[in-house]
């Protein structure tokens, strides 16, 4: 049974957590994630879940306790944003290296400084090399759906990795949206019971976790993590299909929007993909063959799918909601360009950094991007590879 409800992104994520009813949640509040912790606490207080909620004193401890809990054999979760994720940095790597299936929503917010509470992706991008799986969500519906699938992905025996479920701060987390939620039983059956393989509370099989790993074996254990990331792609696809069967919404690694015959395309994560699709529709009505590529999974990077989806386009603009300060563009830009290089068909790839600190991405910004792509397509010339959208210049 499915039902249509109006929820904010935070409420949708909290709803998913309630239906999953994890063994342990350890979390700390931060804008714009705070509501998730508050709502979940009220579920605990009212007996709507029987999760052990650990109200830790920091995000570092939130992830540390989640690590302890997951290593103990529990289905464990945390949730954070921005500074909280930055404070967790050290232990996110450790969670991944310990191969612990911790699911944690991240409500994307700009990193200080200067301090700011609004959306950009600098928090998530800071951990793109940490070894966690990163899912992105365009809206509350996707955030809800991703949370439920994340549990299965994380716990799959070929994977056993933490999964970060991203959604845009305020834009998605606080805006009321109409979405379809599944009934409790369907979710419960879908996520199933977690069966840990190696865990501290297995009295018959004591285990040492988090050992000192020197140059003689560390490298091999890192290589294993890479393999788990590779395996995750197939697992994410499978689970995305299975989720489609219970919800009618099937998921892959990327969403291709009108790319089949597209000449020009925009690549963008999270909520801005909605804006971009709207603009593409308008342009299509005017005869411009515009399309949009929205990576749902950013780590592991779906290089094959992206290459396949973009192989026919003439010009691509990658929209990055984060800076790298490398002076050669944003993080997704580097990845996309890298992937297209192998095609050797001279697709022009440009980069736009947008929306830092919550700056609006307006329809006309995206229209301008497509216009510039059309120019590049026609002239074959790129004047400037990296530009800014909506900046005072």
């Amino acid at each position: 049974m499915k039902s249509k409800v109006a929820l904010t992104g935070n409420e949708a994520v909290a709803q998913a957590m309630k239906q999953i009813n994890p063994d342990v949640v350890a979390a700390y509040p931060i804008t714009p994630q705070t509501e998730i912790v508050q709502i979940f606490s009220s579920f605990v207080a009212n007996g709507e879940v029987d999760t052990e909620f650990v109200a830790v004193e920091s995000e570092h401890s939130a992830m540390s306790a989640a690590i302890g809990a997951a290593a103990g054999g529990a289905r464990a979760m945390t949730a954070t944003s921005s500074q909280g994720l930055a404070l967790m940095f050290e232990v996110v790597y450790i969670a991944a290296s310990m191969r612990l299936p911790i699911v944690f929503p991240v409500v994307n917010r700009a990193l200080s400084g200067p301090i700011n509470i609004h959306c950009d992706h600098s928090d998530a991008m800071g951990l793109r090399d940490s070894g966690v799986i990163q899912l992105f969500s365009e809206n509350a519906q996707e955030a809800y759906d991703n949370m439920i699938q994340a549990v299965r992905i994380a716990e799959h025996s070929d994977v056993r990795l933490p999964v970060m479920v991203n959604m845009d701060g305020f834009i998605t987390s606080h805006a009321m949206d109409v979405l379809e939620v599944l009934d409790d039983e369907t979710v419960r059956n879908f996520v199933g019971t977690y069966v840990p393989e190696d865990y501290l509370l297995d009295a018959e099989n004591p285990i040492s976790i988090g050992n000192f790993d020197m140059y003689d074996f560390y490298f091999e254990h890192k290589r294993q993590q890479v393999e788990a990331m590779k395996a995750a792609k197939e697992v994410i696809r499978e689970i995305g299909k299975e989720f489609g069967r219970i919800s009618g919404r099937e998921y892959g690694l990327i969403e291709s929007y009108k790319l089949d015959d597209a000449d020009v395309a925009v690549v963008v994560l999270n909520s801005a993909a909605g804006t971009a699709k709207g603009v593409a529709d308008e342009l299509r009505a005017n005869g411009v063959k515009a399309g949009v590529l929205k990576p749902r999974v950013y780590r592991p990077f779906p290089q094959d799918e992206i290459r396949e989806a973009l192989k026919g386009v003439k010009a691509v603009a990658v929209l990055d909601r984060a800076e790298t300060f490398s002076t050669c563009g944003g993080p997704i830009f580097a990845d996309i360009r890298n992937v297209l290089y192998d095609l050797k068909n001279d697709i022009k790839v440009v980069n736009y950094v947008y929306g830092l600190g919550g700056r609006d991405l307006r329809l006309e910004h995206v229209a301008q991007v497509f216009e510039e792509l059309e120019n590049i397509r026609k002239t074959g010339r790129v004047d400037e590879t990296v530009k800014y959208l909506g900046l005072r210049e």
Partner: protein
Amino acid sequence: MATLKELSRVEERFVGGHRLCAGCGHGISVRMILNAVEDANVVVGCATGCLEVASTIYPYTAWNCSFIHNAFENAGATISGVEAAYRALKKRGKIDRDFKFIAFGGDGGTYDIGLQSLSGAMERGHNIVYVCLDNGAYMNTGIQRSSATPTGADTTTSPAGKVIPGKQQPRKDLTAIMAAHNISYAAQTAINNWQDVHKKAKKAIEVEGPAFLNVLSPCPRGWRYNTPDIVQITKLAVETRFWPLYEVENGKWKLNYKPKKYVPVEEFLKPQGRFRHLFKPGNEHLIKAIQEEVDSRWLALLERCGETPELPPR
């Protein structure tokens, strides 16, 4: 009180083959504490430091029980997460066995970088034991000062130089800070008195709720004393009242050992290379200041314990 005959029959939880230096106090402390667990199931957590790096060099573990190391500053949070998992899985009928939870941290991982994580874990009331193995410096990274380093000690970041004679600040009183959390049990002990360690470890393990033990755990390398003399050096720490043995149970402070006579702190300092510079002619005032610190702390402790605040007879 169990005898050593009885205790020696308990299964060894921290086995030989670890790579701690010969004569390291941590090996003694950990063996004593885990011995008090007897045959209960136990999960051990450990902060980064000498104990952890020496005991879990892949593919070898010296821990004959479940063990987790996470990072340097989060042993408190990590063990609290394991304990939360235990409660959750027990409640849901996924496990049926009982477990005890013990975390070890060095003074660096406890007094300094891990204090917040420990404070949070204690405040939340998890049923855990946190054991600080205090050797008075960051030994694992090469003897740097911590807030547990005694006044005057020569460490690599508080070196005894031409102008500054070693560590300038008094020690942080961590045991009192932990007691101020109003936890079920907080105690300070030292390995020279194994009965005291055993009794306190047992109490800490048995009480409901959070317990904290601060164990003086000498490091022959960092302290620079004659390695076989570990019991004597620890005993001097207690006899000179540098390291008093006391416990705080449900808010009640109790002194566990009162030296019969006044032993000057010099006797503890003298055999240790880290205090050698204090004995140079002209530095008498430094030792005098250390003595004054020890004496005033002792009097304050006696008062807290409801004893007459007086120094032992000379």
